[in-house]
C-alpha cells in the first residue's frame, strides 16, 4: 500500500501530512490516518480539498494529513463561519473540517447549529474525547455526568449529544463512530464525502493523556467494550457496480448518494433503524442517551435539503474565479444607474 496509484494517479503518500505532534495513541491520529486513506481511495483531488479547523488538539490535526490541500486553522469554535465563506467563495472545493467536543460543543455550539441550518457543504468531524485536551483536561460539554478527573474534579453537568443537536438543527447527514473502529470510520467518511451539505461525524476519539480511564465513555476500553454499530457499512463508489441482490433483502438498505455512489447498510441493530427517518433517528439517540448505549453508524441522512450555494442560486463557476468582466459591470451600467438618480432630466 502507499505505492499503488489511485484513479488520478496519486500515491497514498501524496495524501499524507506533516508528522503529528499529538500524543502517541491519541484517537485523533487514527482519524487522520483514515482521512488519508479515504482521500486516497476516493481519489480526491488534493487541490480541491480544503481543511478547516478550530482550536484544540483535534483542530491541529489538519496539519497532519493532506499536505497538498490548503488548510486554515482558525479560531476556537468558529470554523463553521470560515467554512461558510470558503465554500461560498468556491463551490468546487471539497471541505473537510476537524473540530473537538470543546470546540464544537462548548464555545462553538451556536456556530455549529447555524452551519447545519444553512447546510454548508462540508464533512464536519467532531473528534469527541469529552475533555479539552490542549488545555490539559478540563471537562467539555460532552463529558459524562458525574465523571471524575484528576484536575477538573467531578462533572456535575449533563452532556450534550452532538448528533442530537445536529438533528434538531435539521442536519442532512448525521453519523457517529469510534476512532477504534477504523473500518466504520472509513466507510462513513466515504459516505460523508459523497454527501452534499453538512455531514456531521461525531467520532469518539479517546484522549489517552487525560481521559482514557475505563470508566469514561470516551475511552478506548469503554468504546471497545460497548460500541454497538447500527449497521455494517460498505461504501460503493460510483464507478463500481452495486449488487444489492447478494445481500438478504430487507436487511440491507442501499442509500444512493448525490454523486451516484451507494452506501450499503447491513442493519445490525434489533430495531433495524431507518436512517432516512428523522423521528426515528431522534428517538434512537434519545433512547441511547437514556439507556447509556454507545450506538454508532449512519444515524440520519436526508438527500433532499439544498446546500447553501444552491440556496444562494450561485452561478456554476466558483465566485472566486469569475473574470473581472463578470463581477464589475461596465461603465455604461454605472452611467445608467447615475442617470436614474441625476437631477433634472
Amino acid at each position, binding site marked *: 500500500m502507499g505505492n499503488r496509484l489511485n484513479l488520478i494517479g496519486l500515491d497514498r503518500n501524496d495524501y499524507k501530512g506533516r508528522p503529528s505532534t499529538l500524543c502517541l495513541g491519541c484517537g485523533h491520529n487514527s482519524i487522520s490516518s483514515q482521512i488519508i486513506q479515504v482521500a486516497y481511495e476516493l481519489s480526491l483531488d488534493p487541490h480541491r480539498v480544503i481543511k478547516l479547523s478550530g482550536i484544540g488538539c483535534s483542530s491541529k490535526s489538519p496539519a497532519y494529513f493532506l499536505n497538498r490541500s490548503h488548510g486554515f486553522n482558525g479560531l476556537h469554535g468558529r470554523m463553521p463561519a470560515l467554512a461558510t465563506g470558503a465554500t461560498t467563495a468556491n463551490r468546487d472545493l471539497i471541505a473537510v473540517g476537524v473540530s473537538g467536543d470543546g470546540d464544537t460543543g462548548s464555545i462553538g455550539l451556536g456556530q455549529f447549529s447555524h452551519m447545519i441550518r444553512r447546510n454548508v457543504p462540508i464533512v464536519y468531524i467532531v473528534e469527541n474525547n469529552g475533555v479539552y485536551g490542549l488545555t490539559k483536561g478540563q471537562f467539555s460539554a460532552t463529558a459524562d455526568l458525574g465523571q471524575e478527573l484528576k484536575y477538573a474534579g467531578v462533572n456535575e453537568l449533563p452532556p450534550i449529544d452532538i448528533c442530537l443537536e445536529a438533528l434538531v438543527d435539521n442536519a442532512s447527514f448525521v453519523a457517529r463512530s469510534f476512532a477504534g473502529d477504523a473500518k466504520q470510520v472509513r466507510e462513513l467518511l466515504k459516505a460523508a464525502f459523497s454527501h452534499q451539505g453538512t455531514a456531521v461525524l461525531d467520532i469518539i476519539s479517546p484522549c489517552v493523556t487525560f481521559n482514557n480511564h475505563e470508566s469514561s465513555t470516551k475511552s478506548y476500553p469503554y468504546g471497545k467494550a460497548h460500541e454497538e454499530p447500527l449497521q455494517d457499512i460498505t461504501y460503493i463508489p460510483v464507478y463500481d457496480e452495486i449488487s444489492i441482490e447478494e445481500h438478504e433483502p430487507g436487511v440491507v438498505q442501499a442509500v444512493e448518494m448525490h454523486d451516484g455512489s451507494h452506501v450499503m447498510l447491513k442493519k445490525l441493530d434489533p430495531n433495524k433503524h431507518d436512517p432516512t427517518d428523522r423521528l426515528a433517528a431522534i428517538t434512537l439517540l434519545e433512547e441511547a442517551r437514556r439507556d447509556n448505549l454507545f450506538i454508532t453508524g449512519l444515524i440520519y441522512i436526508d438527500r433532499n435539503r439544498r446546500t447553501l450555494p444552491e440556496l444562494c442560486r450561485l452561478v456554476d463557476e466558483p465566485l472566486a474565479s469569475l473574470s473581472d468582466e463578470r463581477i464589475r459591470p461596465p461603465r455604461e451600467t454605472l452611467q445608467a444607474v447615475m442617470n436614474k438618480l441625476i*437631477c433634472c432630466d
Partner: protein
Amino acid sequence: MSDVEASALESLLVEREPIINDFQIMIATVNGSGSQTANTALLRSIFRMGVPVSGKNIFPSNIQGLPTWFTVRVSKDGYIARREDYHILVAMNRDTATEDIRKLPPGGVCLYPQEWKIREDRADIVYYPMPVAELLEASDVPANLKSYVANMVYLGVLATLLDIDLDEIAFSLDFHFGGKAKAINMNMGLVKAAAEWALDNLAKRDPYKVARMDKTQGMLLLDGNSAGALGAVFGGVTVVAWYPITPSTSMIDALNEYLRDLRTDPATGKATYAVIQVEDEIGAIGTVIGAGWAGARAITATSGPGMSLMSEFAGLAYFTEVPAVIWSVQRVGPSTGLPTRTSQGDVLKAYFLGHGDTKHPVLLPSNIEEAFEFGWRALDLADRLQTLIFVLSDLDLGMNLWMSKPFTYPDQPLDRGKVLSAEDLERLGGFARYRDVDGDGITYRTLPGTDHPRAAYFARGTGHDENAFYSERPEDWEANMARLTRKFNTARQLVPGPVVDQADGIPVGIIAYGTTDACVVESRDRLRERGLKTNYLRLRALPLNETTRDFLAAHERVYVVENNTDGQVANLLRMEFPDLATRLISLAHADGLPLTPRWLTAVILEQEL
C-alpha cells in the same frame, strides 16, 4: 394674540427682506407615522428646483410612537452641515410640540394640525394651522392608509407657502414610489388639495421662499449606505455576510437590490454573488474571512457592537493575512449607546481591532462620492495588502440623503493583488507563503483550488515561519512581526491620502475626517468672515503618512475636529507624531448629532481671538 403683540410681529416681519433659499425646515413627527415619504419628497423637490439642500433624520431606536425630527436645510450657498436652529417648524407630534415651538427663533414659522386647537401663545412667530383631519376626511384615501398619507398635507401647504413647484413634488413622489401610479396619485391628490387649501386660506406672513437656481444640475441625491453598496458592486464584491444592525442594515438592503439588478448572470439568471444573513457578527466576519481566503472579494457591514464581536477574527485575519472589507457605519457608543444617532467613536477600535499588536488600514469617507469610491477601492486594497480593510462611515453619512456629483467609474482595473496561479507555480517551482520577495512586506499567496501540487499552504493564527509552518522560534516571530510592520508602512502609501487645502503664511490648521467635513467647510468660511484664515487637511484614511506630518509641521496650531468624546484621532496623531504633538488641539464633541459650524466656529474663535 393681543393686538400689540401681533403688531410687534408685524414690524419684525416687515423689517425683513424675503429670505430666499437660506433657511431650515424642521418636521417633528412620530416614529412609524410614515413621514419619510413626505420628508424626502420635500427635500427632493427643492433639490430639483436647483437649490442645494441637505436632510437629516433624527430618529429614535423605536418602531412606532416615539418622537422623530427631520430637518431640511435649504442653502443657496451650498452648505450642507447640520445647523441647530430652524425657521419653519412642521409640528406633527403633539408630545414634543411645546418644546419644538419654544425653540423657534423670533420670526419663525409654525405649521400644525388645526384640530390640536393649541394656544398660539408666542407673539413673535407665525402660526399656520392646517386642517389635516378635514382634508383627509375629504379625500378618498382608504381608512387604513389615512394616517400615512396625512403627512402629504404639510407637504402641500409648504409647497404653497414656500413656492415649491407641485410638478417637482409629483416627480419626487413618482421617484419615491418607483412609478407606482396608484400610490403616487393618492398622495399627490392630497398634496394638491392641501396646496389649494393654503392658496385659498392662508395669508403668507413669513419671509421664507424657495426660488429656482441652477446649483444642482447634473447632481444626484443618495444616502451613503447605498453609495457604498454601489461602490462594492462595481468593486466586484462576490461574498457578503452580515447580521442586521442599525445603521448598517440599509447598506445590505441596497447591496441586495443592486446586486440582483446588476450582477445576475444574464445567461443563466444565476447570481455572481452571495449575500448571506448569518447568526451574528462573529459569523459574519468569519464568513468573509473564509471567503477572502478562498479568493472571494468579501465584505461585511456592521456597527460598533458588531465590531466588538469581530475582535478575535480581526486578529486572525491580520495574522493569517486574509483580505476582506469591514464596512462599519458608526453610531454612538459605548455599548448599545444611542443606536440611531451618529458619531465617530470607533476609530481607535477599528485601527487596533484584535489583541496583541494589531493595526488595520481604515478608510474614512466624507461624502457619498467617497463612499462609492471606497466601496470598490477597499476591495482592491484588501486584495493588494492581504489584510482587513475597514471603512468607517457613520449614521449621518450612511442614512441621510446627500447631494453629489455622479460617481466616477473606477479608474483602474480590479486589483486582485499578489496571487500565484498554477502556471506561476510551475514557473517558480514553488513559493513561500510569508516570504517578503518584493521588500514591501506583502507576500504571495495561492488560492484553494489551484491545481498544482505545490499550491497548498496552511493558514494559521499561531506563530509560523515563511513557509507557513508552525513555529515558536523567537526569530521567526520577530521577523514576521517586523515584516507585518513593513507591510503596514506600505499601506501608508497605498491608502487614499489626505485632501489638503493650504495656503502659505497661515499659522492655524484644521484636521478633520468623515462627515465632520461639512461642518469644517462651513466653519472655515465663517472664520474667514471673522478674519481668521485657516488651512485644512482632511484625512481620508489611516495609517497616517508624511502629508499629515508636513501639514502639522507647517502650522503653529492644528485643531483636530471629531465627533467623539475622547478625541481619538487627535490621540493617534500624538502617538504617530510625538515631535509635533504640542501643536495639536483636540476639539472633540459627541452628543449623537452631527457637529455644527456654530459650535466649531465658536470654539475655535474662543481660542484664537
